[in-house]
């Protein structure tokens, strides 16, 4: 058994910068480089691409990254693990094998991890009596949206990744495993940990470390409240986990890279997008973030210890995406003097246009950009006199409709203001209506979901 495992965080989202990952691969002395490419909406976007072309449905970046990194990864002995397979990990794995062959990397083993997609099992599950109760709204009316479902993926644990690594994989490409399973999997594999009570604290530690690094630069100075102090963020270094068999770990980054890693930047990400910090529920286990201790043993180095946890939950989260109408949106800006009065008048005129055009809207929303777009009622408005002295004020309108034709009316109404509107009104390029995929989060029993791992060899 290894006495330490080093894992790098290669990506925080689909669209992240690749150069910090290349820097980690070159200088990080890594056993593993891990990539999270998926967000809640991503699966529905990918499913739509797969419907158009059965060979698509994975995150293209995931394949590009592997192509760019496999030669150095093989030379360094670094394994590459991602969830970029999206809704079609098989197609992604096949592309990666083809790329490896073209690069002359004979014998590279690619593990393909499936089992999270349940789109074709929904009716069976309904027939079995699974209620699909909406976790957020408590609604039991899933049957009302059933016909409009476009994607259904379960957040799965690291079992499939572990299986792939046990079969000698150099690259693992998975679907909707949890964001931090790409870290938990290799750690459990290297240390031989099992999903049982005896390992609950150590798995919780791996989950916690995975949470800290899964958004890459978000724990090394990105998104920071102390942004002004963070050095050379455009050249930021992504984080490294160095983990020991007892569940303690140190975080670091490549020497000389931009950004900063200290107890504060780690705290900033500890609290990000979590609910009850005593119960951070992941498919691999439950971590108690209130148990751990942070120390700074050196510059750009943080030690994480004493994490406690509980065994994995009986239920897994299933997120179902369904088509839910359209959004039409417009934006215009108004100059000093009387910028605010101009925006108010333009809002009135748009509402009159909607009436004249017979707009059928489910919801109409206006923002005064510069005043209340981001915080709504949480932002105190200046009095009218002060607002009219502002250099500029914007008006943003967003409307939810059932059909694209109705959403298109928003764009037309906004363009009518080119001449009907107040003097000085300026517009950018009018925005096209966009389709809405709403999400239906629910829970399903773990025993219904089994990971399937297959090895393809170049």
């Amino acid at each position, binding site marked *: 058994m290894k006495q330490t495992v080093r894992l790098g965080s290669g990506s925080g989202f689909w669209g992240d910068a690749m150069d910090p990952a290349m820097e980690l691969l070159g200088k990080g002395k890594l056993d593993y480089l891990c990539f999270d490419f998926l967000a809640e909406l991503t699966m529905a976007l990918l499913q739509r691409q797969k419907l158009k072309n059965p060979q698509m449905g994975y995150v293209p970046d995931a394949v590009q990254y592997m192509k760019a990194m496999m030669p150095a990864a093989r030379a360094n002995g670094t394994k590459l693990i991602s969830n970029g397979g999206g809704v079609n990990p098989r197609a992604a794995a096949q592309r990666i094998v083809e790329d490896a062959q073209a690069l002359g990397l004979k014998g590279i083993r690619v593990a393909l991890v499936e089992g999270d997609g349940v789109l074709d099992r929904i009716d069976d599950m309904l027939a079995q009596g699974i209620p699909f109760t909406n976790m*957020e709204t408590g609604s039991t009316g899933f049957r009302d949206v059933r016909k409009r479902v476009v994607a259904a993926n379960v957040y799965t644990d690291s079992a499939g990744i572990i299986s792939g690594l046990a079969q000698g994989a150099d690259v693992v490409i998975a679907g909707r495993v949890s964001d931090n399973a790409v870290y938990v999997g290799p750690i459990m594999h290297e240390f031989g940990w099992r999903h049982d009570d005896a390992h609950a604290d150590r798995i919780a530690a791996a989950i916690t470390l995975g949470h800290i690094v899964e958004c890459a630069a978000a724990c090394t100075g990105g998104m920071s409240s102390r942004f002004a102090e963070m050095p050379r963020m455009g050249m930021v270094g992504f984080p490294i986990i160095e983990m020991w068999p007892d569940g303690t770990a140190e975080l670091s980054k490549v020497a000389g890279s931009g950004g900063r890693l200290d107890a504060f930047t780690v*705290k900033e990400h500890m*609290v990000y*997008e979590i*609910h*009850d910090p005593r119960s951070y529920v992941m498919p691999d286990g439950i971590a108690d973030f209130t148990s751990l201790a942070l120390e700074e043993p050196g510059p750009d180095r943080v030690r994480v210890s004493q994490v406690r946890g509980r065994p994995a939950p009986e239920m897994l989260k299933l997120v179902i995406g369904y088509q839910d109408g359209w959004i039409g949106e417009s934006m215009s800006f108004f100059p000093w003097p009387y910028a605010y009065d101009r925006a108010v008048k333009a809002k009135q005129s748009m509402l009159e246009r909607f009436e004249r055009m017979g707009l059928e809207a489910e919801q109409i929303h206006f923002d005064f950009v510069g005043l209340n777009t981001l915080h709504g009622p949480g932002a105190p408005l200046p009095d009218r006199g002060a607002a009219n002295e502002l250099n500029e004020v914007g008006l943003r309108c967003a409307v939810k409709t059932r059909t694209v034709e109705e959403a298109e009316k928003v764009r037309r109404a906004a363009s009518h203001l080119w001449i009907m509107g107040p003097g000085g009104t300026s517009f950018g390029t009018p925005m096209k209506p966009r389709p809405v*995929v*709403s999400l239906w989060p629910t829970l399903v029993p773990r025993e219904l979901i089994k990971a399937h791992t297959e090895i393809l060899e170049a």
Partner: protein
Amino acid sequence: MTHLLRDIAYVRSGDKGDTCTAGLIAKTPEDYPALLRSVTPEKVKALYGDWIKGKVNCYPMDNIQAVVVVMEQALGGGATRTLRLDQTGKSLGHALLRLPKVE
């Protein structure tokens, strides 16, 4: 002069579905007790008015001197269907820094 949370805490916020989560971190360990006193579900709901339709919970983290504020049905339906510009609530949590510091 009234102090605000801005004076004693930092914030990072984001989303999970239609829930906005915001972590408030005390600037110093000495600021933590005042941070705990200053943030309550009632104050958070009052601040955001009808932008929060669900319930609010505040969870203390004594080990890192932070409070996690979880606001349900707070993002206009969630990132994929909200009509707001700040679809994922990255900005929304920053308004918490306007809450008055309770001495």
